[in-house]
């Protein structure tokens, strides 16, 4: 990398001292190595916030995430009715705004400092550059980001589950004893099916062939059980045709949270963090799926750099989409509950 001329630091000198002090809290950053770290330190920008000051607003276009160096940030989201509900509190050593890191979408919530806070901004572009330079530590950092997002997904599912006030009219019974079977007699080559899906467009034709080779094509009749809540994360599935439903198990039925159509990857959260499936996954329609073992997924994620980045991008987008959807589901449930309570 060519040497850039020395730049003025972007924040007051005391913040640079702060970040080095806090590196002990961020072993993952230290693993980036001295050159990458120097690069980050030089190009990252710092924000200092007083209590109540806004870090970012829900809906804003975002291009990176923040590492909280000291202090704490309150996350709140607007829900139907324009109420704002508190979501969580993020403290020193944690990441915030990481969802936009995965998909470049708008901010999913508003973040405000709860006390005097210092934060370091890491841009998406910067991390992608580090990854393209085949930086394993950059992959490790993004792996940590994905892990945190997966944990957020679980926390949201738990918050949804804890809501005992919901309409039973929204619950669905799982009827079927339908089974999954190995796909026979496919009309079109699997690689061609993969290439035809917009959601998987990050994959080249060669990537599609590699994916087709490492997966098993299976068919699932409508209602077939793919994985039950509490099952071990042995596989993930890619939908080629049809759709899968992810539902929270309630006593009287399933509360549908996700419907995954063609091109979507299903079962990511448990495959990423290794814990059991939080949701029951079943076929919402007669479906054609690619099934990949967890081990093959991990291998593919670490393999040749350009394939790994393509897979990473696709997986990241799916994970972010799932979390955004779960957040909206919670907001919807909260909004409807307030609307209806007031009428009674």
């Amino acid at each position, binding site marked *: 990398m060519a040497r850039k001329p020395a730049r003025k630091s972007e924040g007051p000198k005391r913040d640079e001292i702060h970040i080095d002090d806090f590196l002990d809290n961020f072993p993952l950053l230290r693993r980036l190595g001295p050159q990458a770290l120097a690069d980050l330190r030089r190009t990252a920008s710092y924000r200092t916030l007083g209590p109540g000051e806004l870090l970012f607003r829900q809906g804003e276009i975002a291009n990176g995430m923040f590492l909280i160096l000291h202090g704490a940030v309150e996350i709140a989201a607007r829900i139907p009715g324009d109420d704002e509900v508190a979501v969580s509190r993020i403290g020193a050593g944690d990441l915030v705004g990481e969802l936009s890191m995965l998909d470049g979408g708008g901010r999913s919530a508003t973040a405000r400092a709860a006390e005097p806070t210092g934060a370091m901004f890491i841009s998406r572009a910067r991390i992608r550059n580090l990854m393209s330079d085949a930086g394993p530590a950059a992959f490790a950092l993004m792996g940590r980001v994905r892990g945190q997002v997966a944990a957020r997904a679980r926390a949201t599912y738990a918050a949804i589950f804890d809501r005992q006030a919901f309409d039973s009219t929204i619950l669905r019974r799982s009827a079927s004893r339908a089974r999954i079977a190995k796909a026979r007699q496919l009309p079109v080559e699997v690689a061609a099916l993969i290439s035809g899906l917009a959601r998987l467009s990050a994959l080249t034709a060669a990537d599609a062939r590699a994916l087709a080779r490492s997966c098993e094509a299976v068919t699932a009749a409508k209602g077939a059980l793919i994985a039950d809540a509490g099952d071990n994360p042995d596989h993930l599935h890619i939908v080629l045709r049809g759709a899968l439903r992810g539902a929270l198990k309630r006593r009287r039925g399933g509360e*549908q949270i996700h419907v995954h159509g063609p091109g979507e990857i299903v079962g990511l959260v448990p495959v990423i963090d290794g814990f059991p499936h939080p949701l029951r996954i079943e076929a919402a329609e007669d479906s054609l799926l690619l099934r990949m073992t967890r081990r093959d997924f991990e291998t593919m994620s670490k393999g040749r750099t350009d394939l790994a980045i393509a897979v990473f991008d696709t997986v990241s987008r799916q994970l972010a989409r799932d979390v955004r959807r779960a957040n909206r589901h919670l907001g919807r449930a909260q909004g409807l509950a307030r609307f209806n309570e007031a*009428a009674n």
Partner: protein
Amino acid sequence: MCRMLGYLGAPVLLEDLLYAPDSSLLKQTTDAQMLTMLNLAGFGLAAWDPGSFVPEEPHIYRSTQVAVFDRNLHALARKVRAGALVAHLRGVPYHAGVQINEQNLHPFRFDGVPLAMAHNGDLAGFRDMRYDLLEFVKPEIARRIQGSTDSEWLYALTLSALEDPTAEARPDAILTAMTSALSAVRKVRDRHGIKQSSSVNLIACDGRNLVATRFTFDFGCYGDKALQGSADFLSQWYTLGRNYGHHDGEWKMTGGAANADSVIVASEPLTRDIATWVEVPEYSALVVHHAGERKTAQLVALDV
């Protein structure tokens, strides 16, 4: 492919719903955020204005003209304050085989029938199915079908399933009738071996109650055909609140869900900031009931 809008609540000037927001229904003619097609095949609305003569009867306006150029519509929108509304922008494939005419505009509302309905979606193989659906349509309803759309038949199927289509029905009865319509379509699809993904998003309103569905037959099933356009489940969003107006630089309702008295349902949010909007879940219906002065909104799973 169409975009549509339903409203139930405190009276609002039509211009504020149809024109004013940064992604208003009229702007969706050319700039829909969640659809890549233009919607050029005409416009229709049914708007219930409590201050009008015979307020149970809505204003009806229909025109095959491209809505953004329609001065009469704009003039009307500046005068009518509606407490209930169904509006629809028709979008069709771009070829001369499509019939652009007044009879094919939504919402459909037969004379003497309180219920109006609009449809966003497309039934695959409709030409093959159409006359088999007659089995599920009452003769006195069938004779009123004037157009060539699948949408009008969905309306006719729904009316046929109501005990008395000329009387106001309870919202759960409206939903039951809409579900019967979907069941009829499912039976005829099965009979003809039609397995292609077909969306049936509906908004139905009679001036006092509003029911919206978000449903697709065989979602994601395209056989081995290449996917054309989006593989997403056709969208249907809603928001609730009170005091619809221009707040904090944005057209929205405020006041919190607990104080809400109004609901907007639409193919996609009317504003680019979608923080206060949320999707009707896939394979579900949103039913807005009047409970005296107040309203309640319920989500119901649809399994057809």
